[in-house]
């Protein structure tokens, strides 16, 4: 009668099945698709527009808008994790004795019955043949166990017994990855910060929650630069950052995309840039044309600056920046406002809307002023992260590559040679082998061993 299993035994059995592994992987793969098709971390309005109220409710209930952090997805990962641990322990308890035996031994009868057995004859004394075989086997496998039998001599050698551990290395690596991810989720953060040139901040904004987080030091953006290709696509952008700690400048470093700054476990990445909206432009190129002669002069100006014009008597002053310039009740958008002083001493207000560069010509004054170019201040878009789990993940990566390599390309191979007396002088040699994987490779290896023995 079969013994009734206890509940812990049943749970153990549930988790140590490969079927569970396969089903969990299928579920993980299938559900992962959802997050690539349905928008992640979007605003409620976006979901409502795409899927309607009913669809949105379902998305909320199952957290599909953030599915890779959803309870059910994490549960699948935890099941996989337990499954891997239990399976590995269960199998390792058996294979441990195989991997680390007290004494390596072999079963001669088992090798005699193998399908891959190759039998050939040697025309030498048995003792000489045994010596040849020992030399070849010792070179291609390793330490030889030699036993005398009634009819002759048997040799046994093996290699790569330790490679049976490979698959466990892969499993351990996955545990490392998941632990690293967990540590990152618990103790790390991902934030962003848009910093105007010249501005300083001691906090960043968490990407998901959009709340400020203190960094423990301040970052100042000294300068931002962007270079473009001829095609107009950005070539490179670079920020010069200074870290300020306790009111003192600690150090300054340039960061580029792919070349971040790392300080006290916090990583600062160059991720984007844009034109600063809060601060006034850095310099403005102004073009002034004398209408009677058509002569044009250009001036590189700052707000509040006054320049003498070429006639020696008139002057132009750039006064302010107006985001919504009003002209007779019409909003003309971004504009600069200045005053021009003619040689007769009269000051006239001029509006210079950016969208209409010929606007001032319509005033029909002595000079026509236009804004040629505005050098706006930039802000640098920084991504700021902290992830203390990343080292566990990297260890996992290394273990996974090593483990895969061992598992796929190495094997535990055993070789068995029996040398028996056949006729007067001749002897019969039989060679066979076992392997835990890649039987084809073993076959090839057996053939080369035969060739080497025959060549002796």
């Amino acid at each position, binding site marked *: 009668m079969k013994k009734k299993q206890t509940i812990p035994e049943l749970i153990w059995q549930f988790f140590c099945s*490969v*079927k569970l*592994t*396969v089903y969990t*992987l*299928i579920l*993980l*793969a299938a559900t*992962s*698709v959802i*997050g*690539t*098709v349905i928008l*992640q971390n979007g605003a409620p309005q976006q979901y409502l527009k795409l899927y309607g109220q009913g669809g949105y409710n379902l998305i909320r209930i199952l957290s599909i808008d953030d599915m*890779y952090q959803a309870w059910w997805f994490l549960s699948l990962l935890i099941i996989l994790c337990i499954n891997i641990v239990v399976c590995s322990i269960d199998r390792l308890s058996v294979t441990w004795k195989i991997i680390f035996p007290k004494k390596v031994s072999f079963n001669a009868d088992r090798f005699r019955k193998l399908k891959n057995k190759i039998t050939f004859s040697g025309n030498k004394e048995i003792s000489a043949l045994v010596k040849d075989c020992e030399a070849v086997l010792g070179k291609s496998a390793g330490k030889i166990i030699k036993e005398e039998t009634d009819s002759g001599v048997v040799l046994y050698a093996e290699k790569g017994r330790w490679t049976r551990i490979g698959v466990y290395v892969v499993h351990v690596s996955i545990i490392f990855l998941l632990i690293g*991810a967990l540590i990152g989720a618990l103790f790390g953060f*991902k934030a962003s910060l848009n910093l105007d040139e010249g501005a300083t901040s001691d906090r960043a904004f968490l990407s998901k929650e959009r709340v400020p987080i203190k960094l423990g030091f301040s970052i100042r953006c000294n300068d931002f630069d962007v270079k473009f*290709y001829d*095609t107009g*696509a*950005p*070539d*490179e*952008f670079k920020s010069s950052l200074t870290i300020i700690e306790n009111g003192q400048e600690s150090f300054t470093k340039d960061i*580029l*995309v*792919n070349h*971040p700054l790392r300080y006290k476990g916090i*990583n600062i*990445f160059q*991720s984007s840039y844009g034109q600063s909206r809060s601060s006034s432009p850095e310099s403005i190129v102004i073009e002034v044309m004398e209408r009677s002669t058509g002569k044009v002069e250009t001036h590189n100006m700052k707000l509040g600056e006054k320049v003498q014009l070429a006639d020696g008597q008139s002057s132009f002053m750039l006064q302010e920046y107006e985001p919504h310039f009003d002209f007779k009740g019409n909003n003309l958008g971004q504009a600069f406002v200045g005053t021009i002083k003619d040689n007769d001493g009269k000051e006239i207000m001029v509006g210079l809307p950016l969208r209409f560069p010929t606007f001032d010509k319509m005033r029909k004054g002595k000079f026509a002023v236009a804004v040629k170019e505005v050098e706006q201040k930039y802000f640098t878009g920084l*991504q*700021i*992260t902290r*992830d203390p789990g*990343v080292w566990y*993940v*990297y260890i996992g*990566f290394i273990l*996974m*590559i090593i483990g*895969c*390599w061992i598992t*796929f390309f190495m094997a535990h191979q055993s070789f068995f040679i029996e040398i028996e007396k056949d006729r007067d002088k001749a002897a019969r040699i039989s060679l066979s082998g076992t392997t835990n*994987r890649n*039987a*084809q490779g073993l076959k090839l290896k057996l053939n080369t061993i035969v060739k080497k023995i025959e060549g002796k």
Partner: protein
Amino acid sequence: MTSSLALSSTTFIYALASTFYIASFAFKKQALAKIGFYTLIIGFVDNTAGIILRWIESYQMGYGHAPFANMYESLVFFSWTVAVLYIFVEFKYKESIIGVFVSPLVFLAIAYASFDPSISTKISPLIPALKSNWLIAHVITCFLGYAGFAVAFGFSIMYFIKPKDPASPSIFAKLPSWELIDELTYQMVVFGFLFLTIGIITGSVWANSAWGKYWSWDPKETWSLITWMIYAIFMHLRMMRGWHGNNLAWVSIIGFIAVLFTYFGVNYLLSGLHSYG
């Protein structure tokens, strides 16, 4: 010689190689397969020259980057990896008949790159995010992975067309033994799996050094993980549950569909960090 000349002639030579292989199979002439093999090698040399020339040309244009930066370049490189892997397999196993199932893939990838009007063949400058030494390591490993799966897919097809009756008069009866098909498919999946693993890892390390996140569930990342999981299932079914033959071949085919989606589908249908190729 320019890279575009080299690569368009490569397309033609690969087409010729596939034709030889198919003809060898259809007319049961071993000699044609041999010609096909040598043609494939010539095409491969031409393909290599094309890639190197393109690399040099990008420096001459002042952009200076490895030719792995857009869809056209990646397809050309995909053909190259499948070709090199197949040449290695035929060299090792001396079974030229299986070239029928692989050489068309080599040709189709590069032909698609050349003939689809929506794929720009221009050498374009590198966006800042791609300027990293990781680009070369990441692209090469990923594409070796893809190539392994592509060749495994070609071999899997054999399961469905080889007649079960060894005495069958069908031309498909000449296909290699079941054991060899099984072995070859498995070896290719293993190769692909190892390189996909390294490819995902290099991508992940790169992402961490460029964006500060080693994993962000970007569609390309997610789909490569889905592919990885399908082939992990393949391994477990074969090694732990003893699956073989048709059933396992189906898993390999599903896996390759996931590869194709990771490669093309994500770029065309979904949006994300990998939209450049």
